[in-house]
C-alpha cells in the first residue's frame, strides 16, 4: 500500500496529530495532504503536522466538513499520506497574496522540474489547488494557470464550516488566508479525474448579455433583467425563484457536460452567483438529479477506466453536502467511498479546468 489515509476527531490539536501519526505507523510518508475543520486553530495545526512528519512535504486547508474512506465527518482532521513509491516528485508553492501575480510560483515549478510549464506532460504531472474560499479569486487563478500549462489542476476552495468569516490554506508548517496552495505532483502510477454534478440540462437557454464579471453578478440574460429572465425560464415569479436555486442552477454546457454556476441571491433586477460568468456566454437551465447514484456511476466509470483505485481526493461542494444532510443521506454518500482510500472535504467552490459550483471534482490514483 503506497497511499494511506487517517483521521481524527480528537478535539485537542496535539492529540489529533498524534492520533494521525499513530494510525500511519511506520509508513514512510513523503507527502501528506490534510483537511481540517475550521474549529481547529490553523496555525497550530499546520505547525504540528509539519513537526510530526519532518521528512514529508505537508499541505492542506480548512473545510466545511471532511470526508474520509467510507465516512462524512465534521470537526475532524483527515489526512492522506503518500510514500516514495506513490509520488516520484512534488513541489508545493504558496500564493500568499491573491491580489498579486502568480508568476513566482510558476517559476519555482519550472526550476524544480527543470522544464517550462508549457512543456510539462499532463499525463505525467497533476496539479492540486487549494484556495481561500472567501477570496472570490478562483476564476482568476485558474485562468492564469490554464494560460501557462496543459497540466490539469484540480482542487477546492477552503471552507470555514459555514461561518463565512475566514478560511485557511496550510503549507509546510504555516497557515495562510487570502492565499492559495499550488502543488504539482509526479505520481508513479496512472491517475484520472472525476467531475460529477447531479444535474440534467433543460431546453432553456440564458445568454449572458450584460454582466459585472468581477462581482460574479449577471445583470441581463437574453437582453432582459437577469432575475426576470431566470424566473421566466423556471416558469415562476422573481420572488419565488430563490426557492429553486439549489435544484435549478445554470451551467455552461460543453458537449453535454455542464460546468455549474449556482445562483446566490437576487439583487434588485440582477443575480449574484457563486462563480463568475463572462458576457456572451450561453448558459443552460439545469434540473437536479440523484447525487448518490450519479456519484456511484462516476466512481464505477473511473474504476473501470483505471482497473483499480489506490486513492481518491474528493473536493465536494458544500451545497451538495447540505443537500445530502437535508435528505439524511450523508452516510450513504460516505459509504460510496468505503472500498477506496479517500480523503476530501466540503468546499466553497471546486476547481478542474476552471472554477465551478455544486460539483464534486476528484483526483483518482490507480
Amino acid at each position, binding site marked *: 500500500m503506497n497511499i494511506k489515509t487517517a483521521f481524527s476527531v480528537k478535539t485537542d490539536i496535539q492529540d489529533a496529530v498524534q492520533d494521525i501519526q499513530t494510525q500511519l505507523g511506520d509508513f514512510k510518508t513523503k507527502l501528506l495532504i490534510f483537511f481540517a475543520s475550521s474549529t481547529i486553530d490553523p496555525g497550530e495545526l499546520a505547525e504540528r503536522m509539519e513537526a510530526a512528519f519532518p521528512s514529508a512535504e505537508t499541505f492542506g486547508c480548512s473545510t466545511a466538513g471532511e470526508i474520509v474512506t467510507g465516512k462524512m465527518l465534521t470537526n475532524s482532521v483527515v489526512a492522506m499520506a503518500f510514500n516514495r513509491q506513490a509520488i516520484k516528485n512534488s513541489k508545493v508553492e504558496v500564493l500568499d497574496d491573491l491580489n498579486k501575480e502568480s508568476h513566482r510560483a510558476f517559476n519555482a515549478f519550472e526550476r524544480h522540474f527543470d522544464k*517550462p510549464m*508549457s512543456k510539462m506532460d*499532463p499525463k505525467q504531472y497533476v496539479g492540486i489547488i487549494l484556495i481561500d474560499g472567501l477570496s472570490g479569486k478562483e*476564476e482568476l487563478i*485558474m*485562468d492564469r494557470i*490554464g*494560460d*501557462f500549462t*496543459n497540466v*490539469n489542476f484540480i482542487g477546492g476552495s477552503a471552507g470555514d464550516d459555514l461561518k463565512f468569516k475566514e478560511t485557511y490554506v496550510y503549507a509546510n508548517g504555516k497557515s495562510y488566508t487570502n492565499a492559495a496552495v499550488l502543488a504539482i505532483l509526479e505520481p508513479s502510477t496512472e491517475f484520472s479525474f472525476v467531475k460529477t454534478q447531479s444535474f440534467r440540462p433543460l431546453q432553456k437557454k440564458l445568454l449572458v448579455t450584460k454582466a459585472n464579471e468581477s462581482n460574479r453578478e449577471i445583470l441581463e440574460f437574453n437582453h432582459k433583467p437577469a432575475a426576470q429572465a431566470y424566473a421566466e425560464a423556471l416558469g415562476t415569479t422573481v420572488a419565488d425563484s430563490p426557492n429553486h436555486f439549489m435544484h435549478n442552477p445554470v451551467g*455552461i454546457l*460543453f*458537449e453535454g457536460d455542464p*460546468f455549474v454556476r449556482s445562483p446566490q441571491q437576487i439583487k434588485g433586477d440582477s443575480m449574484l452567483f457563486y462563480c463568475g460568468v*463572462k*458576457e*456572451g*456566454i*450561453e448558459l443552460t437551465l439545469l434540473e437536479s438529479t440523484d447525487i448518490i447514484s450519479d456519484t456511484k456511476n462516476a466512481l464505477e466509470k473511473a474504476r473501470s477506466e483505471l482497473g483499480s483505485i489506490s486513492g481518491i481526493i474528493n473536493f465536494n461542494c458544500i451545497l451538495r453536502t447540505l443537500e445530502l444532510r437535508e435528505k439524511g443521506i450523508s452516510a450513504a454518500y460516505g459509504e460510496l467511498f468505503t472500498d477506496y482510500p479517500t480523503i476530501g472535504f466540503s468546499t466553497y467552490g471546486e476547481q478542474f*479546468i*476552471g472554477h465551478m459550483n455544486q460539483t464534486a471534482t476528484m483526483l483518482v490514483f490507480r
Partner: protein
Amino acid sequence: MAGKIKQMIDAFVNQRAQGNSVLEGVVKIKLILKGIDPKIYTPESADDPAIIAKLEELMKEFK
C-alpha cells in the same frame, strides 16, 4: 474582414493540443470560460479587434 477569429481559435487549439482530442476539449473549455466560445465563430464572423487581441496574447503566453 471576416473569419480571422475562427482561424486564430483553430490555430490556438492546435498549438495547445497538438492533435490530442482530450486536450482539444480542455482548451476549448478554457476559451469558453474566458468568454470566447469557439462554436459561435465561423469563417463569416466579423473580425472583432478585442477578441483578436485576446487570442494573440494567449498564443504568446503559451510558449
